[in-house]
């Protein structure tokens, strides 16, 4: 293989590599562009579910507070 052929081969391989690079860069940018939204979705979903459970805890405690005050009243 002479110098020209070597150069041509290197050139075509480089152009192919650059195309792959473009694709990888594009993919990364796509991933990053949607990442914040995805993370927010996960957090919002979790926060919402946690809030529902927290309210259930509040209800359990409030029920018990009610029973406790009534019990103290009953044992006067």
């Amino acid at each position, binding site marked *: 293989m002479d110098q020209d052929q070597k150069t041509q081969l290197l050139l075509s391989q*480089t152009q192919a590599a650059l195309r792959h690079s473009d694709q990888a860069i594009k993919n990364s940018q796509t991933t990053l562009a949607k990442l914040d939204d995805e993370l927010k979705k996960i957090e919002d979903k979790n926060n919402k579910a946690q809030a529902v459970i927290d309210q259930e805890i509040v209800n359990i405690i409030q029920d018990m507070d009610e029973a*406790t005050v009534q019990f*103290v009243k009953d044992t006067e």
Partner: protein
Amino acid sequence: MPGKETFNKVEPTSKEKIESPIPASSEINPEVEKKMTDKTKETAETLTPESRRFLGGLYEKIKSSDIVKNIVDRHEVHKNNKLENRANAKIGELERKKAMEIKGVQDIKNAQKESQGSSKKIEEIYKSMGKEMEQAEKDKFKSEIETHQKLIDEREGGAQRIECKITDATDKLEDYKNKAEAARGHLAGRLTAKMETNNQALQEFDGQRSEINKNINDNQTQIKELDKYEAGFKNLLSEGVQGAAAEIAKKNLAEIKAKKAEHIKNVKNLESNQNKIDKKIDGLKEKNNKLQEQHDKIYPAKEKTTQKQAGEKPENYKIDQGKVTLNFGGGKEMFLDSKGNITTIGSDGAQSTLALDKITNEALAKFKAVSSEELESVGIPPEIIERIQNIKPEAGEKKEFIAGNLVAEWNKYVKIFKLSELQVSLDKNSDPGQEFGDKTLAKEFLLNLIAKKAKVSKDKLKSPITSKVINFFNKQTA
């Protein structure tokens, strides 16, 4: 607390007065009162000052109105022995009163017996004298006996009324203790639910992290690749190429340099985002550690090991009308009903239900032992059956990839995303029983099938497709 009857007010004994733990001037903490229901506040307002001080003492430790943060302290209020001691002191006082009434009844009965005896003796004396007791005297004795009887009836009635109060007080104490114990189970269950919900978020964050990691690897691979060609062009120039070839080499070197810079910038950006996700993951793990601590304070580990024998995996299952019930031993059961809800009954009797849209894969994974046919026979929704079938194996379990199963699972997976065009089939020459030693070989095999169907080389497959394949394997093996 059911029932409206209250007890007669009984003054504390001198011993109780001396040993009373109630701070003399404490009232119900305003932070606690803030979160009480209106009904509770109304009841609290009717309490005697002594009772309010008693309540104040119980809630003394709680300094903020945030119930969720105070869950353990609040639970300790409801399980405080002082409540039981107070009830027992009242019951003891009533017992003493009842004993006094019973003794009073006995005293009067003795006096009545004495009157009857006296009446009989006098009547005998009269008889021995050949006379009869005068009517007035008979009436006097009769009236005395009747008065005694009236007193006996009154005091026996009093003793019965006290007995009713004792029964009522004992029932109320039992009711309260049962309610506090049930609340304990419910609170522990809710804390577990919080951890499970966090675990689900952790899993999702982990998925995002893997995606970022894949991008970092892709960028780094490209940098290495470009390094190779950069070296090639530098070599060309060093060999002294001139003219157009030199220009091409310089132009390509500049292009490679720019592209590498973009990759490096991308990697930094991706790594920074990966750190952001890591912080979120660490934050959630820390939250779960704290939740576990709270859970263990409500249900101490010692108690769990000595009293609770329920295992993590079901021991057996039964098919009932409209539901499948898993038995974990130790009284713990979990059932999946035809509406797609999962209800768990803990060893402590606490019950919690996860609705169809809240069911985690972790909960569904428990039903993997039940066959699809059995699930169908009780009317479990098809989408739930499909989720159960698609659940990845537990961590630590080795996933074996067999060609036939792999294709079937992939086809099911893409069908969920309505990407039937990505479904593949085995070649005529492929062996459905071919085993792949690891995920990498299995992934290559699947990518080749997809590429063949798309009539492109494997390397030309678009990124959304390869990402889907990566996610599929992550789900299979995570």
